């Protein structure tokens, strides 16, 4: 070792192995957003395919910009209880030096956390697809990613009151899963049901998209959970393997539940089960042993399955069941830590079963606070946006489909009967150009 190396050892140091893994993990998590777009697009009707996918694509643009401008700072600057400071606004001081408490450059830490904000913002869109105006969604996404996501991320990851009080949340049961799930419920209540909801069967138009989307989400989730230890060390390795085990068990139990209920194992059910399993292990990934992770997978299937069966019987058109898949499964995962966390595996804390009842209290607090804040903040936010602009497309536009109305495109355009309107020699041919919304 050179003298320089010894001197550097005194200050926090960037580890190349950890950084390499976190760069890859960041890219894995980024893939989850288009994967979610595909998953959601398959679940809606053909005429709303592009609009649904575009809500996830919009999150890639809006959440990233908002996160860089202000969200990251509010989430990760300082350790005040409710919300962070403003010293990282506009990425000020976010450089190559290691982020406090990690061995990776601050820039990588920022980018990794940004991908979480993006996918969580996209998740909420599942509650309002097929009728919310695209413009109104853009405004909502921009404000939600800061006022709801960044605040809850501060509570759970950034040294806020939950983390400080002892709540364990490995990869985002609080801000990502309960944050999106209970916000989705509020959004569905404010935006209200689709016009044909409860009257007509509104069915998924492409189950293969749904399965492929779920598969890609699972793939990306290895970065989501495996990267949340911010290193290639034990917590990351444990979380990575648990991300394989839990969804597999959820899938198996979901098969059995499907068989009991309808005598057939369903494909859309299987895709849903993969998401529920991934969500369930998210908060617990680095805190429980692999055998308990398998038990969690089985347990997490039950409440989410129940909500998925019961929700469509209500008037609440929480269209793509974000509450059941994310809110409820995140809730299950957060509480599960309180029982089965194991210090011999996580090096941090034991749960009730291993003699530390206090941990369950910390977890229960998060399981109450996160839903309350997410629901209330989203409800108020959307009501306020609704005062300024219409949230919904008109009934007529809803009937025609959001793809043509909002984007002027179709997912499966044939081109038959289409006439080119292209300027030839600089001349625009005189054609009666109609706005489809007012034809």
């Amino acid at each position, binding site marked *: 070792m050179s003298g320089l190396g010894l001197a550097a050892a005194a200050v926090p140091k960037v580890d190349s192995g950890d950084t390499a893994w976190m760069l890859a993990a960041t890219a894995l998590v980024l893939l989850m957003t288009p994967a979610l777009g595909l998953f959601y697009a398959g679940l809606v009707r053909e005429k709303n395919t592009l609009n649904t996918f575009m809500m996830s694509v919009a999150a890639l643009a809006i959440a990233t910009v908002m996160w860089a401008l202000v969200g990251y700072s509010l989430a990760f600057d300082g350790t005040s209880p409710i919300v962070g400071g403003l010293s990282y606004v506009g990425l000020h001081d976010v450089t190559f030096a290691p982020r406090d408490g990690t061995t990776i450059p601050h820039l990588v830490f920022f980018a990794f956390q940004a991908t979480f904000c993006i996918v969580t913002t996209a998740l909420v869109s599942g509650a309002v697809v097929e009728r919310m105006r695209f413009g109104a969604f853009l405004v909502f996404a921009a404000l939600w990613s800061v006022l709801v996501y960044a605040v809850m991320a501060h509570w759970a990851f950034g040294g806020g009151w939950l983390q400080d009080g002892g709540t364990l949340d490995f990869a985002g049961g609080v801000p990502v899963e309960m944050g999106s799930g209970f916000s989705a419920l509020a959004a569905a209540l404010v935006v209200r049901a689709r016009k044909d909801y409860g009257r007509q069967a509104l069915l998924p138009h492409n189950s293969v998209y749904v399965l492929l989307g779920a598969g890609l989400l699972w793939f990306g989730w290895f970065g989501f959970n495996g990267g949340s230890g911010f290193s290639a060390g034990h917590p990351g390795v444990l979380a990575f393997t648990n991300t394989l085990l839990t969804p597999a068990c959820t899938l198996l139990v979901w098969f059995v539940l499907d068989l009991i209920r309808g005598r057939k194992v369903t494909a859309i059910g299987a895709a849903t089960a993969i998401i529920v399993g991934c969500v369930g292990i998210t908060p617990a990934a680095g805190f429980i042993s692999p055998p308990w992770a398998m038990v969690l997978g089985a347990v997490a299937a039950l409440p989410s399955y129940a909500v998925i069966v019961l929700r469509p019987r209500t008037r609440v058109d929480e269209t793509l069941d974000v509450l059941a898949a994310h809110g409820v499964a995140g809730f299950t995962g957060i509480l599960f830590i309180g029982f089965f966390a194991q210090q011999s595996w996580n090096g941090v804390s034991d749960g009730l079963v291993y003699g530390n009842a206090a941990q369950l209290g910390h977890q229960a607090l998060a399981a109450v606070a996160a839903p309350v804040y997410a629901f209330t903040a989203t409800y108020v936010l959307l009501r306020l946006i609704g005062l300024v602009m219409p949230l919904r497309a008109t009934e007529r536009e809803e*009937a025609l489909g959001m793809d043509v109305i909002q984007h*002027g495109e179709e997912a499966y355009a044939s081109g038959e*009967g289409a*006439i080119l309107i*292209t300027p030839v020699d600089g001349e625009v041919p005189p054609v009666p150009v109609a*706005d489809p919304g007012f*034809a």
Partner: protein
Amino acid sequence: MKLVIGIVRPEVANDVLEALYRAEVRGLSMCKVQGHGGELDRVETYRGTTVQMRLADKIRFEVAVTDDFVDPTIEALCEGARTGEVGDGKIFVVPLERAVRIRTGEKDHGAVTPVSA
């Protein structure tokens, strides 16, 4: 015996089915077609290509009925499909020479009268 052909907007297909069911018209077929009936065209843009879509998606119902059922069928189609704007569609009624139910070999009136299960 007549063949009633109704060409309607895709978004009202379920309303038409409901109206036909209430009119006790049970045997029918439907398919997706593309057509143009005087409504203004949609304009769509794909990258640099802007196109005027001359053909709109429609649903075509075909209902073979006995003469007594022609008017109820037409009424049901209108009731389910009318929105009042250009593009609601058309109904055509054409004479039907023969009909055969494949399963039993029943002909004409017997063939177009639905059986109860």
